[in-house]
C-alpha cells in the first residue's frame, strides 16, 4: 500500500504531525510509531482533526482506532483521499 501511496501524502501527514505535536519534522519518519513519538490518545484525536482539515476528509472512528503509527496513518489518509476523488 505504501508503495502506491503518493510520497506527497506521506510528507503532508508528517508535517501535520510535526506541527500538532510540536516535534522537529526530521524526527518523524514513515516507520515512527505513536509510542515512539509520545502521541497519546488525546493527541491522536487532535491529529485526526488536523488531518481532516488538511485533506478535507472525514475519518471514521473505527478506522482511527486501529492506527498505531505514521505509515498506517498515511495509508489510511491516502485511502480516504482516493475514495473522495474516485
Amino acid at each position, binding site marked *: 500500500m505504501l508503495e502506491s501511496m503518493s510520497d506527497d501524502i506521506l510528507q503532508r501527514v508528517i508535517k501535520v504531525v510535526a506541527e500538532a505535536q*510540536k516535534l522537529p519534522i526530521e524526527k518523524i519518519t514513515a516507520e515512527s510509531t505513536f509510542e515512539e513519538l509520545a502521541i497519546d490518545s488525546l493527541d491522536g484525536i487532535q491529529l485526526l482533526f488536523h488531518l481532516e482539515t488538511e485533506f478535507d476528509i472525514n475519518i471514521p472512528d473505527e478506522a482511527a482506532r486501529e492506527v498505531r503509527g505514521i505509515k498506517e496513518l498515511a495509508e489510511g489518509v491516502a485511502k480516504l483521499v482516493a475514495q473522495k476523488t474516485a
Partner: protein
Amino acid sequence: MSQRRVVITGLGCISPLGPDVESFWAKARLGESAIGPIRSLDMSDVRFQNGAEIHGFVPTEHFDEKQLIPLDRFAQLAVVAAREAVRQANPQWSDAEREKTAVVTGSCYGGKTSEDEGFREIYANPGKRARVHPMTIPRLMANAGTSWIAMEFGLQGPSYTVSTACSSANHAIGQAFWLVRSGICDLAVTGGCEAPLTPGSMKAWEALRVVSPDTCRPFSKDRKGLVLGEGAAMLVLESEERAKGRGAVILGEIAGFGTSADAHHVTQPTIEGPSLAIRRALEDGRIDAAAIGHINAHGTGTPANDPVETAAIRRVLGTQADYARVTSTKSLHGHAMGAAGAIEAVAVTLTLARAEAPPTANYLGLDPDCDLPLILSPEACHAEYALSNSFAFGGLNAVLLFRAYRG
C-alpha cells in the same frame, strides 16, 4: 468537644487588579477600580461597554503550547492562581497527604470562551460539515479548573466543582473548609475561576438588564447594576495542627460556613434566604453576631441586591450592623461570577491579617435602604471576625466566616 481549626496558609489571585496577590492588594487597599471599557471584544452591538478585564495575561508565559491546547482561559487562570497559593503555602505533601488533600473550585460557566468559539461555526453554517475542535469538551467542562489543579500537584483527595452562579466560590471554599474541619481531609486547595467575557454571554447579560451602563456602585444612590469581571483566586486550607506542626506562616482562619436557598424566585432575592445563610455561618463558627467587625458584602451594585442584603445583615446582626464595617470589593475587581467569592476571600484574609480594609469605590451618596456603615476610603480594620457574603441568582446563598489568626 473542641473542633478542629482550619487555617489559610496560601493565597493566589489573578484578577483585573493584577496578576498576583500583592498587585491585587496594592490597588484594592487604596480602592483603585479596574473597571473600564472592555477591550477584548467588539462591544459595538452591546448596550453596556464596561467590564473588569485582566490585561496583559500571556498564557505562554505560564504554560507550554501543548499544555494550552486543552485549557480554556478560565482553567488557565485557575492553575495560575493555584500555583501562587501552593508556592506560598509550601505544603510539603507526603504521598499519603496528597491522598487527603481536597480540590474544590467554583465556576459558574466553565469554559465559556471555548464553547462560544467552538459552536459559532456550526450555528452559522448548518449542514455544512462544520466541526469543533476535539478539545472543546475538556476545555468547556466546568470541573476543568479542579482537574488541572489536581493534576498539577498530584492531589488525590475529594475533588469536585461547585456551580451555584455567583455563590460558586463561597460554596466551594465552604465545602473545602468542612472537609478539613471534619478530618476527612488535612488540606484543601479551593477557590473559584471564571472567564465569562464572551460575545454570547455579553448579549445574555444585556438581555437580563442587570448590568450597569457605567460602573459598579455598591449600596450607592443611583446605582445601576453590576459590572462583569473575570479572574481566579485560590486558597490553601490546612488543619491548624498540621500548619503549626510544620512551622507554616498562618495567614488567617476560616471559622464558619453557612448556606441556604431562598426557594422563592430565580432572580428576585429575599431577605430570609441570605439571613439564614448569615445566621448559619455564625452558628457554624459558634460566635455571636456582636463579634462581627467587618463584612465583605455581596454588594453587586444592582438595584435589587443591595437593599435586600442590607436588610438581611441588619436582621441577623441587629445593633452590631451599625458597627461592622462593610465594603464591596466588586466595585474594584468587578463581578467575576463563580470566582467572585474567592477573590473576596483573598481580600478578607488580607483585611484581617494586615489590619486595613479596602474601600468601596464609585459611591455617589446615601440610599436610605442601604444604610450600612460603608468603608468609603482606606481605613484600619482591627476586626477579629469578618463575614463574606455571596448570594446567587437562583436564590442560593453562601456565607463564609473568617477570623484573624492570632494563634
